[in-house]
């Protein structure tokens, strides 16, 4: 099997970075997330390939937090669109965990299927390669296997690397994966490898039957209890690898400007507030319920898979200790008339 010796990791990232923009998990001051390797500064940044999980998921690579869509020229009656901003520059996510890869696969379903193909997402995604980092030792808040993710051999990865101590076993899985493997010609070695053995999960979650059961729980009192602490801050949606909802806004500087989109959150009151003032999800509980039903029921109904990938991020960041694993458990145990 091919392996990448850890002593050659930096060199490998440099080589890859010369061919495409490479995003790696980095701790940068108080932030952690997938940042461009080209901006890596050893005195400021720490490479976090071992972390479960960095604060931000890599979703920003295919769905940036804000993204320009098209340019507008507005001169009174005469208005025109002068350019569009589909960004097709090649990118590579290095070290994504299976849960984050699944998050991107879920977004593929949203943006690339069901009648319309989103040209902005497609441009980025078509030119994006994923090198996934296999998980053998799940963290305290991980429950990906309960959410249809294989942490060791994640579906959707172009390359899977396996941390074997001094080296990464390197396994190309797709044509794109072969292409980046070829870029590392001379850096990868052939070696007999012994893969680590998988450790058990600390958090036990059973999602079996939850989507079906939720169909009859829209008005269940469980939502009142569960939503009670939530302050609708939106942190959970911000860090989630599969939360994809966005807003579209315009910015004008005199006669010129552009329309852009930006991450939005179902936790915000403005999200569904209508121009006339009405709001079908005006109450905090209604928004809370929407988030968890979207994750656990609605997405499953529409796309055949849950929209939670079990990464555990929302459990960690929530300031009020809302915990999706506990919600799943509560649904399992709830009595439904």
């Amino acid at each position, binding site marked *: 099997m091919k392996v990448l010796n850890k002593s050659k990791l930096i060199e490998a990232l440099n080589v890859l970075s010369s061919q495409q923009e490479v995003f790696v998990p980095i701790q940068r001051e108080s932030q952690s997330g997938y940042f461009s390797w080209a901006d890596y500064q050893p005195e400021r940044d720490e490479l976090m390939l071992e972390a479960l999980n960095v604060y931000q998921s890599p979703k920003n690579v295919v769905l940036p937090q804000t993204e320009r869509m098209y340019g507008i020229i507005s001169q009174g009656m005469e208005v025109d669109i002068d350019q569009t901003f589909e960004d097709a520059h090649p990118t590579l996510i290095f070290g994504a965990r299976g849960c984050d890869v699944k998050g991107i696969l879920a977004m593929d379903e*949203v943006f690339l299927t069901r009648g*319309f193909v989103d040209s902005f997402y497609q441009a980025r995604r078509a030119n994006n390669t994923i090198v996934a980092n296999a998980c053998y030792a799940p963290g305290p808040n991980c429950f990906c296997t309960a959410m249809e993710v294989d942490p060791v051999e994640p579906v959707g990865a172009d390359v899977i690397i396996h941390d074997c101590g001094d080296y990464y076993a390197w396994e190309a899985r797709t044509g794109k994966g072969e292409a980046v493997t070829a870029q590392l010609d001379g850096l990868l070695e052939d070696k007999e490898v012994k893969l680590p053995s998988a450790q058990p999960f600390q958090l036990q979650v059973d999602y079996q039957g939850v989507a079906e059961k939720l169909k009859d729980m829209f008005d269940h009192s469980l939502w009142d209890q569960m939503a009670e602490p939530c302050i609708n801050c939106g942190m959970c949606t911000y860090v989630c690898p599969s939360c994809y909802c966005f807003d*579209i*806004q*315009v910015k004008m500087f005199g006669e010129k400007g552009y329309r852009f989109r930006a991450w939005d959150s179902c936790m915000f009151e403005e999200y569904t507030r209508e121009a006339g003032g009405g709001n079908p*999800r005006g109450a905090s509980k209604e928004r809370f319920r929407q988030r968890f039903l979207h994750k656990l029921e609605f997405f499953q109904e529409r796309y055949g898979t849950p929209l939670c990938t079990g990464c555990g991020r929302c459990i960690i960041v929530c300031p009020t200790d809302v915990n999706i694993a506990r919600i799943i458990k509560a649904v399992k145990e709830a009595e439904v008339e």
Partner: protein
Amino acid sequence: MNEAKKGMAIEQPLIPTVVEVIDIVDRTPDVKSFFVRNTDGSGLPFQVQPGQCGMISHLPVGEAMISCTWQEEQEYLEFAVKRVGLLTDELHRIEIGQKVGVRGPYGNGFPVEACKGKDMVFIAGGIGLAPLRSFIKHCFKHRQDYGKITIIYGSRSSADLCFKEELFDLWPREQDTQVFVTIDNPEPDWDGHVGFVPAYLEELAPSPEGAVAVVCGPPIMIKFVLQSLEKMGYADDQVITTLEMRMKCGIGKCGRCNIGSEFICLDGPVYYLEQLRQLPAEW
């Protein structure tokens, strides 16, 4: 830009086509119809079926999903826009000749085929007549395909009645068609019916036998009309209505317009009542 965009609408669904406003008609004090066509005068940016919508944008300000009217042989699209917020306020200020953006068509539209052979009962309130009007016009254009047509329409006041020429002049002259108009409160110069739409509907009591009722209007009116129809014996598969949610993308991506696993922009806005009953009670 427009040239490059033509034929590419599907490849870049979020990018509007720039069109020209060729006419603006005041429908009521707060509803205006905007007629648009391609900037080179060559006709339509896209075609729409009755009940479908389009995004109209005053490009430097914002976009809104609006019910869109078009009929075969018509060289323009019509958007009837009610002034309700920032964007629609700005739209109401534009003048003929203004370039605006449009994208679409969006949504499923009315089941015009499935309704063939039925007596049609159209029930609308306020601006809700705009989407129904496309369906009504479709019925008149294919008059032999549909049975008796009953139109029941109401608004707050006589000034708020949309499409008056059609209501009072054109439609009543169509074969086997009855048009009933009501306003909420009495007015000195109004000799028509006074009262709310649901009560008027029950009073008129169009028979459910072989009929389909199509309902569109403010959510509160829809709610009571649905109750009235149920009382009158209309089954859930004889009632069609439209849902409204805030929209941004129009193509099932941005997330906000869902009710359960349905995206109203893409899968709706038109539903049979029997379909609605399967959805979480958020509508």
